[in-house]
């Protein structure tokens, strides 16, 4: 029985993919039915390189150690009223955006990976996907637990799952994950593991966690550090899956290119909310959106796409548009939320004089010219007791579901809003950009089904036609979690705790 000892790679193979076998009694396609409908060709699952060789025993051990430390900090945070140590109560609004918009997406992602991790024909890829599925459950639950303490002292956290399924701006994130979950297993993993995790994590996860670090939020920053090694694994999987698909068959290349283009754009559109969070919602700022984009996408992403060139993959054409938009989107997004502040589950405000100067410095080419005057005018109205709220509802893009606020920066017209449209089955659909129109045009039968919140309100499906009824449908109330930060119950409590008038 004494044969040659196995190396680590072969041993891991025995502990994962060798568990699989060739079927004799059932058609294997009945057990793994979704491998072919997307047109992806897998010629040999054995070519899958395990991106990390983690077995369950090691998984339990490492993860349990991390959980133990994390929950010890949560307990200490609660015991010591850690919420009193944040830079300013305005900061907490960034957390409200996170819990209501991002955390439920972690659960959707956990589900997507469970489905994919059940359906890949190759056991190596299945195990990697399953581990990510349970990791994403971890992120969902540890975020709920981290926010649990804030929920006891601030408004805007308490209805997060209810709101995620209903409130107008949450549909931007929800539709993203509904979109990838309703796709096949390969599009799903390209969307989430590659486009989102590998290319964009540094622009979503990192900004929120760095924001927490800069603003004295020990619970969130500890979560961030604790999740870091999970995220590193997820990013490694993203790169492995893309290389695997491209190496399997040349016919996969154009399909994967389409997916990369689609999902980078979809992901980028979601980041508008991160941009606004970084530039407007953090009392202590660590970096501007523009700087983050340049560092994490233009530099790091450029190198990545250089590396993928040998497979015939190109950097998407629209990166020029994104480059042009980086001076604008945070300001445009904040204005949308500021002016619709009665329908947002967090508080909005006009920046302080110091913050306006910071924005001028970070956006020398655009801020003073296009955005400062509007914010100053809003502040003047506030001072007169006439805080501005718009009465209308925004028109939403059929694809990304963001209000149509993006402007024609590509043609040097930053004050002109971009409108694009397509006709399908005699109905007209509207888009915020060429890219969102292109995504729709490729799969119109899918995107016509989008549950567009504003359309739903007008159709009477959100409690009724009046603002009060919609607010009730959202469980938002009036004057607690929404409206301006000034005069809010959050502000009053904060001042009382801090002993300021």
């Amino acid at each position, binding site marked *: *029985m*004494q*044969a040659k*000892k*196995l190396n680590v790679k072969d*041993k891991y193979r*025995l502990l994962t993919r*060798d*568990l699989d*076998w060739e079927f*004799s*009694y*059932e*058609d294997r396609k*009945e*057990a793994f039915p*979704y491998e072919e409908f997307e047109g992806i060709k897998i010629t040999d699952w054995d070519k899958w390189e395990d991106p990390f060789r983690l*077995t*369950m*025993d090691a*998984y*339990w051990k490492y*993860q*349990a*150690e991390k*959980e133990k430390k994390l929950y010890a900090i949560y307990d200490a945070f609660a015991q*010591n*009223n850690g919420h*009193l140590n944040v830079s300013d109560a305005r900061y907490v609004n960034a957390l409200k955006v996170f819990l209501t918009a991002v955390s439920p997406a972690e*659960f959707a992602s*956990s*589900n997507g990976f*469970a489905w994919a991790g059940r359906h890949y024909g190759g056991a190596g890829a299945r*195990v990697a996907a*399953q581990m990510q599925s*349970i990791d994403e459950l*971890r992120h969902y639950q*540890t975020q*709920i*637990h981290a926010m*649990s303490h804030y*929920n*006891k002292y601030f408004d805007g956290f308490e209805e*997060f*799952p*209810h709101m995620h*399924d*209903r409130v107008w701006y949450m*549909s931007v994130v*929800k*539709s993203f994950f*509904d*979109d990838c*979950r*309703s796709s096949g297993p390969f599009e799903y993993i390209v969307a989430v593991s590659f486009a989102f995790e590998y290319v964009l994590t540094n622009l979503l996860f990192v900004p929120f966690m760095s924001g927490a670090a800069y603003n004295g939020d020990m619970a969130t920053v500890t979560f961030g550090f604790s999740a870091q090694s999970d995220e590193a694994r997820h990013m490694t999987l993203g790169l492995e899956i893309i290389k695997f698909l491209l190496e399997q068959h040349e016919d996969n290349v154009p399909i994967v290119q389409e997916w990369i283009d689609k999902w980078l754009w979809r992901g980028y559109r979601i980041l508008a909310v991160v941009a606004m969070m970084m530039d407007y919602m953090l009392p202590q700022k660590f970096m501007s959106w523009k700087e983050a984009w340049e560092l994490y996408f233009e530099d790091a992403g450029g190198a990545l796409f250089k590396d993928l060139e040998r497979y015939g993959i190109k950097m998407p054409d629209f990166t020029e548009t994104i480059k042009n938009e980086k001076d604008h989107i945070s300001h445009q997004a904040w204005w949308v939320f500021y002016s619709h502040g009665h329908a947002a589950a967090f508080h909005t405000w006009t920046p302080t004089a110091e913050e306006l100067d910071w924005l001028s410095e970070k956006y020398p080419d655009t801020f003073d010219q296009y955005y400062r005057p509007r914010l100053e005018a809003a502040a003047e109205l506030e001072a007169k007791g006439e805080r501005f709220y718009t009465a209308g509802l925004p028109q939403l893009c059929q694809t990304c579901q963001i209000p149509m606020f993006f402007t024609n920066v590509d043609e040097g017209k930053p004050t002109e809003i971009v409108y694009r449209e397509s006709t399908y089955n005699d109905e007209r659909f509207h888009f915020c950009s060429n890219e969102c129109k292109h995504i729709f045009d490729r799969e119109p039968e*899918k995107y016509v*089904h989008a549950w567009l919140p504003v359309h*739903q309100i007008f159709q009477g499906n959100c409690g009724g036609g009046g603002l009060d009824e919609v607010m009730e449908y959202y*469980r938002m109330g009036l004057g607690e979690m929404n409206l301006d930060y000034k005069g809010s*119950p959050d502000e009053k409590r904060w001042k009382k705790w801090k002993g300021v008038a």
Partner: protein
Amino acid sequence: MTLEIKTSNIKPIRNTYGHIARRFGDKPASRYQEATYDNAALVNFHYKPLWDPDHDLNDPRRTAIHMEDWYALKDPRQFYYGTYVQNRAQMQEKAEGNFSFFEKRDLGARLSEDVLSKCVRFLLPLRHVEQTANLNNMHCSASTNYCTALAQATKFEAMDRLGNAQYFSRVGLALDGNSGSTLNEAKEFWMTDSAWQGVRALCEKTLTVKDWYETFLAQNLVFDSLLNDLYYRQMDAWLSVNGGQDLLILLDFMSSRLTDSQRWVDSVVKLTAAESDGNKELVQSWISAWRISAQQALEPLASAMLGEEALADAFSALETRLGKIGLGG
């Protein structure tokens, strides 16, 4: 005498999230409650799944079972991610100790040829059965995305079963000096030995079942009950009296894990059947059908491994278990 450390006392404006308060009242909630209840998406999905256009993305109609409140099917262990991994980490630490004790003392060398060959032929192929259980539970987890209580517990079961498959593989590696030769032999038995073909066919069949609740019953109740009795009671006893006791410490993880897993499965099935006559009939008809399949599948294996009475004994253990959860014949 108690010490009272003064902390700044700030009165909370609420004790828990709105959906938790509506279910349990506005009082401090447990971490299991906040991690589990009413936080899965149920409405306003944007697109139909391309792979299942007749259902919504999260849809309770992927099974014929009806529940007024799916969260009634909670986990009596109250496992959420944090408590789950910490519990299993303790168990794996013990298992790790067992494996290193076994290898350090070279206990494999003390096993007789008879015990060794029995182990390779009958024990090690279970790694493929465990991988089937992994996939079946992952199917349940993916399909119960509308109820976190079920989605998480089935996911934990799936990961447990992958762990089991890996522990069985390590048993082989502990016996063949890390060469993998026993695992290759065992796989040959799995693929060609007539004693195993019924079980393999049954595993392949369970992987084609669409209704997740049927998968859950076939795998976690019927099939597992029978295998558990055959292996962790009868085979265990055989090893004990045939000089194979040392091998048992390598199976300790799998057999102790069963206790808590069965408690959860029993609780889920019991509550489902108690919900309505419709559910009860459905559950019973699925159990009956899978009992017949399991009987045919396991007969050759049980006879070759333990003798002719073995399967009948296992069926009476299943009968007892069904009786306890109100489904006795």
